[in-house]
């Protein structure tokens, strides 16, 4: 059940330059029964001139405390306004949205998680979920600009962690696939979230390795619930809902099988 809820900020802090972590608690009785890794929510800036919710992926879900944690990059005035909130403030949230990862399909396998930049945060919830699946071996390879990294310690609790940095100041110099190759990581499935050039490279990598890849896509969104058709991705086949070769990232996605989408 999707709804717009007024959440309370319980924790907010910067993890790295321009990277904000914000934890929001549901009011009593409002929390959803299930939150899947890879799902997202729309966070509304507390600014009257800004109308649209910001789609931000879920980094952690605490079903005991009824808290959702988001880690996002301060990219413009809307995210800056979110980052300026204090503990105890309220933030309106539309959620939870999107399909999320199908962890059942990954259980018992050697799974490679690839996160690039602000694609890292959803991989934490996914790593945590997969760590509960018996026989699942998770290797998380995270890519950052430089050694100003975030969420590495927490990822290390749930997965074998490798990092890559563009400037080589930590881990492998280069991108996440450079780190995968350097360490000779082998997997039976790959999940990725990050910038489009990285996702294209991951799609090619998975084809070469002949393993399934699940990509979390990003696009400018308006409604977040599948009504406006703003956030579509090109699909390989005619989509069941749209009846054209476009799928709604907010609803059919954001996680797609790599072969389902035409990302160039």
């Amino acid at each position, binding site marked *: 059940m999707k709804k717009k809820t007024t959440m309370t900020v319980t924790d907010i802090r910067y993890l790295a330059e321009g990277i904000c972590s914000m934890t929001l608690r549901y009011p009593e009785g409002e929390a959803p029964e299930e939150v899947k890794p890879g799902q997202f929510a729309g966070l509304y800036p507390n600014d009257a*001139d800004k*109308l*649209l*919710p910001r789609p931000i992926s879920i980094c952690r879900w605490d079903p005991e405390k009824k808290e959702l944690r988001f880690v996002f990059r301060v990219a413009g005035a809307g995210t800056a306004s979110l980052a300026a909130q204090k503990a105890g403030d309220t933030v309106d949230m*539309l959620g939870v949205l999107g399909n999320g990862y199908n962890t059942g399909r990954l259980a018992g396998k050697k799974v490679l998680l690839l996160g690039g930049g602000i694609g890292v945060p959803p991989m934490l919830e996914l790593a945590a979920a997969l760590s509960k699946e018996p026989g699942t071996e998770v290797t998380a390879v995270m890519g950052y600009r430089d050694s100003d990294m975030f969420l590495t310690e927490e990822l290390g609790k749930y997965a074998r962690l490798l990092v890559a940095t563009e400037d080589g100041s930590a881990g492998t110099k280069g991108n996440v696939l450079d780190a995968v190759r350097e360490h000779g990581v082998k997997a039976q499935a790959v999940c990725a979230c990050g910038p489009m050039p990285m996702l294209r490279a991951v799609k090619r990598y998975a084809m070469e390795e002949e393993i399934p890849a699940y990509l979390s896509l990003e696009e*400018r969104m308006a409604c977040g619930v599948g009504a406006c*058709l*703003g956030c579509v*991705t090109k699909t390989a086949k005619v989509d069941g809902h749209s009846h*054209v070769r476009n799928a709604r990232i907010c609803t059919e996605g954001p996680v797609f099988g790599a072969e389902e989408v035409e990302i160039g």
Partner: protein
Amino acid sequence: MSEKEQAARAAAGTGQSGKSESGRPDMSVTIAGVTLKNPVMTASGTFGSGMEYSEFVDLNRLGAVVTKGVANVPWEGNPTPRVAEVYGGMLNAIGLQNPGIDVFIERDLAFLSQFDTKVIVNVCGHTEEEYLEVVERLWDQPADMLEINVSCPNVKQGAIQFGQDPKCLEDITAKIRRIAKQPVIMKLTPNVTDIAEMARAAEAGGADAVSLINTITGMKIDIEKRQFVLANKTGGLSGPAIRPVAVRMVWQAAQAVKIPIIGMGGIASAEDAVEFMLAGASAVAVGAMNFHDPYLTEKVIDGMEKYLVRHSIGAARELTGAVR
């Protein structure tokens, strides 16, 4: 225009009380012989076919659901990015992506017909023949009215041209009116010099009503990347930023024509909806602000009723054109 419509419109200006037996104001309005339980609709393209928002809103409460534009065949729409936020509003260039009339009838109309609300089907096309084909396919379908989108700014060839030239508008209105089985609402674009002239052209062509405004053509440039934010370069501006323009155009159109007007453009509250009614609208539509608040349509209905009570007005239709 039928006698019934003339009477309804005349009643609007006379302050005739329509207070119901319960003492609550009469929220119903009649447009082209179709009675809506209240004047609040959804604006085409902002509410899909109601399915997505039925998780948030009780569709039975709405005056009408106006569906996203549908063409004779599926349309892919424009490349992404298709949307961008701007101060007090948003730009969109979806390009009228739609699944085509066949799927629309089987899935979307079938879904909507379960609800006790009126259904207004928005029709789009590139050519006259495409519009007429859709209108004809809807002959025996559960659609209460048709809204003809001759004003989309984001589709190349056709579409908006019909809506920017009064002669073309009158002509296509007449052709659609001749074959349509349901009342025809022509949706007008604000991207014209004289909205009154366009409203008159629609009326002359036999339109049963007009709706306005569609979006205002706009643009946003990312100054860091030095590129257009929208793949289509230009997009339609909607949201509260356009409301004063929309209110002015509704007022101008109301001075120019006798057919009912459905007013829209940045409605964010019941007060905004009342403003459109006072300017001359017989009904209103909530658009982009559904994205800000998915519960907004119901709030506008409740708030409008409270406004009527507060001002001791017996019926919502008494608001229409009350400020001259």
